[in-house]
């Protein structure tokens, strides 16, 4: 310490003072700054620990004080060690300062502070790896490994028949038999209760072909019939194109039916597929492509729109142009403040606002991206303008050029390449942002993605992930290459 006259005092007194009130010993040794700092950090640390580690078990509720203490200690009282350690260190530090004029390392209280911060932080964010379930993870990851993007082109041969569920006391059910194009499908009996067995058969189908037998409820929900009502039932037709199989009415077909005694017409389907050769994009795959195209276009539109606004604004936000007199400086400060304020609002939040203003869809996303890009680009552009080298401008002026020529040959070559580089970079960011923005209704692939996640269509989610990865990596690479060239 650079005290001109080291205030040597009794270490005992200084220690006692600091024990009474942390930092008081230091203050008595005229170490004002250290004393106040110690007091403040002690108070903050104690406050945080007390706020978080309220004892869950009251002391007098137990007949065994030691057990009660241990329980209290386990449920957070433990963290009181941190302020206690800090308090002890403060006494030691004060005594040492009084005794030999040397302070002790602040590493120790720092360690106590970090112990409390990280320990409490760990508990507050509820880090709990035991909550993770590999089964649940696999349940969503496995279908994602079969992206719903392309499929074999194939031909469908379908037949179905009505079945009534449940049987009515008063009505006779219609006959569960249907003929079409030489195909006959039937079920016996004509009606059945939930989970009751039914014999269904079909003839006139393709011979020796796997046939998926499935149930469609009266309101059009698909129900698989195999396994434990969770897997497709696949039966092979014989050489004449017929099959007969016993099924059970799925237990969930009457969910949400207000009157469970009301007899309704359900259907049993028989589907056969035959490859036609070649591949085609699935319907979800088509949505992936459409969404991706929408996202990239949204980013392009937003970036283009934002350039038009960002260029004039960037001139207002460039200090070297606006610093000349108090009026322009005022405009500069206002512009900068607005830019910084708007820039702090994430495009995602803006998208939620624009969805309300202009409705769901890509336009809301474009507006959100555009507003965010304008402020981001204006700031980058203005920094380019601030970084213009006055040397070449001076040199071009000295050749007798007029001001347009000075702008064309002295200024523009300096700002166009970095402007372009930043713009491409922004477009790159906007493509990534447009994917997220779809999730709040701003159009693009994100909008499909969030819906697929919600209806557990993980195959389509997998396809969307692949499309996003391909587009983002490609753009990333291209924009990096182009920027490398320009700067």
């Amino acid at each position, binding site marked *: 310490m650079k005290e001109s006259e080291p205030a040597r005092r009794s270490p005992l007194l200084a220690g006692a003072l600091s024990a009474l009130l942390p930092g008081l010993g230091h203050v008595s040794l005229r170490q004002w700054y250290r004393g106040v700092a110690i007091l403040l950090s002690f108070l903050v640390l104690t406050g945080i620990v007390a706020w978080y580690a309220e004892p869950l078990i009251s002391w007098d509720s137990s007949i065994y004080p030691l057990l009660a203490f241990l329980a209290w200690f386990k449920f957070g009282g433990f963290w009181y060690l941190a302020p206690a350690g800090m308090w002890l260190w403060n006494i030691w530090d004060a005594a040492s300062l009084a005794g030999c004029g040397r302070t002790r390392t602040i590493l120790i209280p720092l360690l106590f502070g970090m112990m409390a911060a990280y320990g409490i932080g760990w508990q507050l964010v509820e880090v709990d790896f035991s909550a993770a379930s590999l089964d649940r993870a696999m349940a969503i990851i496995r279908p994602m490994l079969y992206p719903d993007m392309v499929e074999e082109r194939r031909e469908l041969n379908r037949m179905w028949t009505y079945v009534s569920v449940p049987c009515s006391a008063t009505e006779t059910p219609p006959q569960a038999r249907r003929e079409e194009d030489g195909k006959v499908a039937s079920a016996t009996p004509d009606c059945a209760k939930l989970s009751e067995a039914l014999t269904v058969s079909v003839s006139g189908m393709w011979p020796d072909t796997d046939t998926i037998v499935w149930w469609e409820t009266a309101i059009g929900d698909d129900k698989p019939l195999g396994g434990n009502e969770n897997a497709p039932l696949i039966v092979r037709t014989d050489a004449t194109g017929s099959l007969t199989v016993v099924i059970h009415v799925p237990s969930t077909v009457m969910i949400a039916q207000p009157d469970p005694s009301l007899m309704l017409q359900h259907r049993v389907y028989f589907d056969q597929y035959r490859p036609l050769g070649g591949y085609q994009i699935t319907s979800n795959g088509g949505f992936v492509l459409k969404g991706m195209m929408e996202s990239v276009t949204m980013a392009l539109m937003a970036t283009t729109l934002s350039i038009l606004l960002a260029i004039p604004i960037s001139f207002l936000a460039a200090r070297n142009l606006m610093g000349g007199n108090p009026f322009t400086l005022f405009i500069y400060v206002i512009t900068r403040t607005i830019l910084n304020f708007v820039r702090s609002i994430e495009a995602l939040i803006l998208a939620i606002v624009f969805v309300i203003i202009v409705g769901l869809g890509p336009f809301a996303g474009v507006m959100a991206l555009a507003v965010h890009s304008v402020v981001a680009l204006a700031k980058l552009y203005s920094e380019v303008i601030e970084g213009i*080298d006055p*040397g*070449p401008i*001076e*040199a*071009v*002026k*000295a*050749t*007798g*050029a*007029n001001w*347009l*020529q000075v702008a*064309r*040959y*002295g200024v523009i*070559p*300096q700002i166009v*390449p970095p402007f372009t580089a930043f713009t491409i970079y922004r477009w790159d960011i906007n493509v990534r942002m447009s994917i997220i923005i779809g999730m709040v209704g701003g159009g693009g692939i994100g909008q499909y993605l969030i819906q697929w996640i919600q209806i557990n269509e993980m195959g389509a989610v997998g396809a969307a992930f692949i499309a996003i990865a391909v587009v983002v990596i490609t753009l990333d690479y291209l924009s990096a290459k182009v920027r490398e060239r320009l700067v």
Partner: protein
Amino acid sequence: MLRIQNLTKVYPNGTQALKDVSFEVKDGEFLVVIGLSGSGKSTLLRCINRLIDPTEGKITWDDIDITAAPPAELRRIRRQIGMVFQQFNLVKRSSVMTNVMNGRLGYANPWLSLLGIWPPTDKQRAVKALERVGIADKASSRADALSGGQQQRVGIARALMQEPRLVLADEPVASLDPVLSHSILHYLEQLNKEGMTVICSLHFLDLVHRYATRVIALKDGIKVFEGLPAEIDRAKFKEIYGEEAQEVRATTVEASA
């Protein structure tokens, strides 16, 4: 003949860069301006082509009053005055060729030049200028891909494009390796021998002795010396540069120029 009368420059922040400086430069002279950093050398050179407007005083060039010239006439005057800078002042991202062509802006059709269309004769002139300074092979390189010495040669080629009668060189070798100094100054000397007037500010006294036909010295914006290079002896040197100055030589061995 360039005549500078009572030139004074006070910057808006109050700095007095030049105080009542007067001198004359005859056609064909190689005038060197010396003085410490901040003594007003750069301001003086920039007043001559009015990159900086003087506060007071008058500059006349063959009966043309530069200080009173309206913008259009000023541009006609500027195109006859080539300028070479300490930091080369090239547009770094443009090609060497574009930088050299910039020297022709004062002569070109203003509208065509904005579109980047140049007369073929100007292009030939640019190739010749680059050949003259020995970097014709670098024409399509980006300016910042060149070394410092090469960049300064581009600067000279740009000045040559103006077909100048007067060349202002503001510390043309101060940013270069000392061994390159002679090669750059050699080009200026050649131009001078072809009849161009050269006004050049320099730091190293040995270069002054080697190239100058006449010297003026500035100290705190005041002209403290005017005369032949040989007249700068040890006492004069101390007077110009201050008591604590030590002479440093740019090169110990005379370049084989």
